[in-house]
């Protein structure tokens, strides 16, 4: 199946150097196949594709640009465990430009980027918001405006991966008052008439498993994964966090945490009363988890703050504007396309035991355990100041210089 000289290739010996046997490697490849929606019997095919790529110099070139970013998404990629970042950037891909990882600096680094762009056939991974403030001067790299650099790099790319919420819709950088005119890649490229496909991977930072999923899919099939209407991979962003939450059972039983550091938290009760945004945020966080599957937010007693919720068409609907104050029980609960108004929720919570709300394929039941917890606000002071963007997500927004006020 695999030619002997290919078996001697870099990847196999590298893995051997790390004590990874061929058997383990094949098992891992089966996992990769499953993660991108192929049958795990495709494992050997995955192995072959990876090994041939690393032996023949046909690895897919990647340009990773940091814009209005905190470098957290690059950092997040560095936390990938299977495969780890070294394997990923040395054996699966050719990462020709990365401000954080590249050995080169200055004009040498810019040259490497330029040559890659000219040659084409690369994937652009974009981290951070597009900074349009002061006519693009909010971000300058190598004496070039960040906005010009994006147009240049995206035009010739096979695809653009918007890694993390800032790249998807501006993220926190676009939070009110959006001082530097931050916006997402998809909308920016559309405004500039660039048709390169965009894959959105929201959450703050990006989950490295999501990057691996898209990239491996592309390496193996030459195709992008199936995307939803937000251009997110359907497989990763098709279900609510709530649907896969291990604390879900407590939600069904009406067992909630009402105070941090309490016995209820010790018992691992549901965090909904503390403002958890799991019931309205689409992501498979409870499945992929974080940091080599060590844990994830809710498992560590932290209510979800909805960092994976996004709206690539409107930077006003970034996750911070839509979800803060994070620890307030949500005044307007979205489940799928259905909005639960506070009154509905209040009735449900104030003791009509056994009220079942069936929506979007899941049922929930409040059992009347309703004391304490954060107050249910009819509308937060914060929200009163916000444009009512949530009700009109398709709004076309003009980003003005220097902010949105």
């Amino acid at each position, binding site marked *: 199946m695999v030619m002997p000289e290919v078996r001697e290739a870099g990847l196999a010996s590298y893995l051997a150097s790390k004590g990874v046997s061929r058997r383990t490697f094949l098992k891992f490849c089966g996992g990769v196949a499953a993660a991108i929606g192929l049958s795990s019997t495709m494992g050997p095919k995955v192995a072959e594709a990876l090994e041939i790529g690393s032996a023949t110099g046909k690895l897919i070139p990647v340009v990773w640009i940091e814009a209005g970013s905190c470098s957290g998404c690059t950092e997040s990629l560095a936390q990938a465990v299977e495969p780890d970042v070294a394997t990923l950037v040395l054996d699966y*891909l050719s990462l020709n430009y990365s401000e954080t990882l590249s050995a080169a600096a200055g004009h040498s680094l810019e040259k490497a980027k330029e040559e890659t762009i000219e040659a084409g056939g690369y994937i652009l991974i974009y981290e951070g918001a597009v900074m349009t403030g002061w006519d693009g001067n909010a971000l300058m790299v190598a004496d070039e405006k960040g906005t010009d650099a994006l147009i240049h790099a995206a035009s010739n790319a096979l695809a653009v991966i918007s890694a993390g919420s800032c790249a998807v819709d501006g993220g926190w950088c676009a939070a009110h008052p959006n001082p530097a005119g931050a916006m997402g890649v998809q909308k920016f490229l559309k405004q500039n008439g660039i048709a390169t496909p965009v894959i959105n991977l929201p959450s703050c930072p990006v989950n490295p498993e999501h990057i691996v999923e898209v990239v491996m899919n592309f390496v193996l099939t030459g195709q992008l994964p199936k995307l939803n209407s937000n251009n997110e991979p359907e497989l990763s962003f098709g279900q609510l966090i709530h649907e896969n939450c291990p604390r879900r059972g407590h939600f069904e039983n009406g067992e909630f945490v009402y105070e941090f550091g309490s016995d209820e938290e010790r018992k691992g009760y549901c965090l909904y009363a503390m403002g958890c945004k799991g019931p309205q945020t689409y992501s498979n966080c409870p499945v992929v988890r974080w940091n080599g599957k060590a844990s994830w937010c809710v498992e560590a007693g932290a209510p979800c703050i909805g960092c994976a919720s996004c709206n690539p068409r409107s930077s006003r609907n970034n996750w911070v504007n839509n979800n803060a104050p994070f620890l307030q029980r949500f005044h307007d609960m979205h489940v799928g396309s259905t909005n639960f108004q506070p009154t509905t929720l209040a009735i449900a919570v104030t003791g009509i035991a056994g009220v079942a709300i069936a929506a979007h394929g899941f049922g929930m039941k409040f059992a009347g355990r309703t004391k304490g917890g954060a107050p249910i606000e009819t509308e937060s002071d914060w929200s009163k100041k916000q444009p009512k963007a949530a009700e009109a997500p398709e709004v076309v927004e003009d980003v003005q210089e220097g902010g949105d006020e």
Partner: protein
Amino acid sequence: MARSVIDPVSRIEGHLRVEMEVSGGKVTDAWVTGGLFRGMELILQNREPADAAMIAQRICGVCPISHAHAACFAGEGAYGITLENGARLVRNILEGSQFLHSHILWFYNLTGLDYVDPTNALSANVADTYDLANAAGTGNSDFAAVKKHLESFIKNGQLSIFSGNWFSRDTFNLPPELDLIATAHYLEALQYQAKASQISGLLGGKMPHIMTSIPGGTTYVPTVEKIDDALMRAIEIRDWVANTLIPDTLAIGPYYTEALGFGKGPGRYAAWGVFNSPSQKPNERYLPAGVIDGKFKLHDVDESLITEYTGHSYYKTESNLNPRHGLTDPEFPEGGRDLEGKYTWCKAPRYDGKPYEAGPLSRMLVAYMRGVPEIVKLIDSTTKTLGVGIHDLESVLGRIVARNLECLYIANLEVEWLTELGKAAADPSTKYFTEPAHETGEGAGMWEAPRGALYHFERIKNNEIQDYQIIIPTTWNISPRDADGVKGPMEQALIGCPVDDVEKPINALRVVHSFDPCVACAVHVNEPATGKHFEVVTNPWGVK
């Protein structure tokens, strides 16, 4: 005279540009430019302190925990509350795991490639490599496999992250065997920095950007199981730092003794202190607070002496204010960057009117002068081994040594704290959270990120933020000139730095990286004033 520009400066966090005047083979003047403005302080207005802790940490993906904690301390000051002991321990552990992550990553994966040339490792003799590793007392790896991997990697012809590198036999001094050892450990380091972050994940939900630290304490009541998982990792990291990172530092250092001779900053050092002891007093922290003046004399920190000057930065108003009364009114100048006028997004912080260096060197010197026993022992024994004095640490190599010794100190403490938390967690009366005493007030969080002194200030009214100001460590270090024309610490450190090739000023890059700048910034070498064009640098295999 020639201009040398590094833009972007890579292997840092953020966007930084460095422009230098080079004369007689040395840097005679320097300008450091922070290339990105996002406006965090403005975004935090009118929000709640708990939200500020969540949002403010997103200023930096490498040191988010420090920002979360500085924001928490500011909020707790405003709320008038003190942390419970359980929360104190959890925060130390979270902070410690982030320091370990950051320091390991920095030494091997960021600044490491200024000293280690993986392509040179190809000519290493594998048997000699084992001998050398044993002689240096550093960790073994399957060096043969790493070499073979490197060979096939280079044969493949795609250089990936090594595209356009500055490796050269003239400026990279290690023998091939040591290059091979360090390359093997470069790969190991990637695994250990991830392991350190897994501790943050276990107690913080995820890393980067933890979820559990909010004003009042921690939302998580840690379970014995999670603490055990974290402790196992902390022990592995401690052993690896002691047996690999430290011996590597001592093995590589002697090949670059010239790096003791340049890179000294202003010679003034500021540390706000980090890792609370049970007293929670800044001067009694595991790494205590203090400032060292230009005469190398230690003082207690006085917050009122901090000012930020904006005359050379892209802000409307020229001001020199204490951050409690600070102003953030960004405006990019119409004429663009002007080295005589406004040339950076970064403000110019000063302490008592003077530039101060922030970072592990500052912390270690302050701890040394405060007589923290473990630090005194570490510094004395290391300077003795290297045959240098305490003032030699005020250099590029000194910053590396200080950071790596600090890494060892924290690796030991991390195991202690986790052991202590394990005992505390078994006791159901241990507390982790405190409700606010009042919701109107103000507070400053003076803390440390891995890169140095970190300051968050907030004023709240009815739990709503009226004013928020942040001074990050890199702002101290990459500060532009002030009203008196006095250069910032990195600008001063670059002066006198030897530059043989204005197109590849590797020593300047070493100076910049020794601060581990965190600006999402880029250091650029400008068009040479001589009119000489940049040589086109391509890798010999071509970029694919």
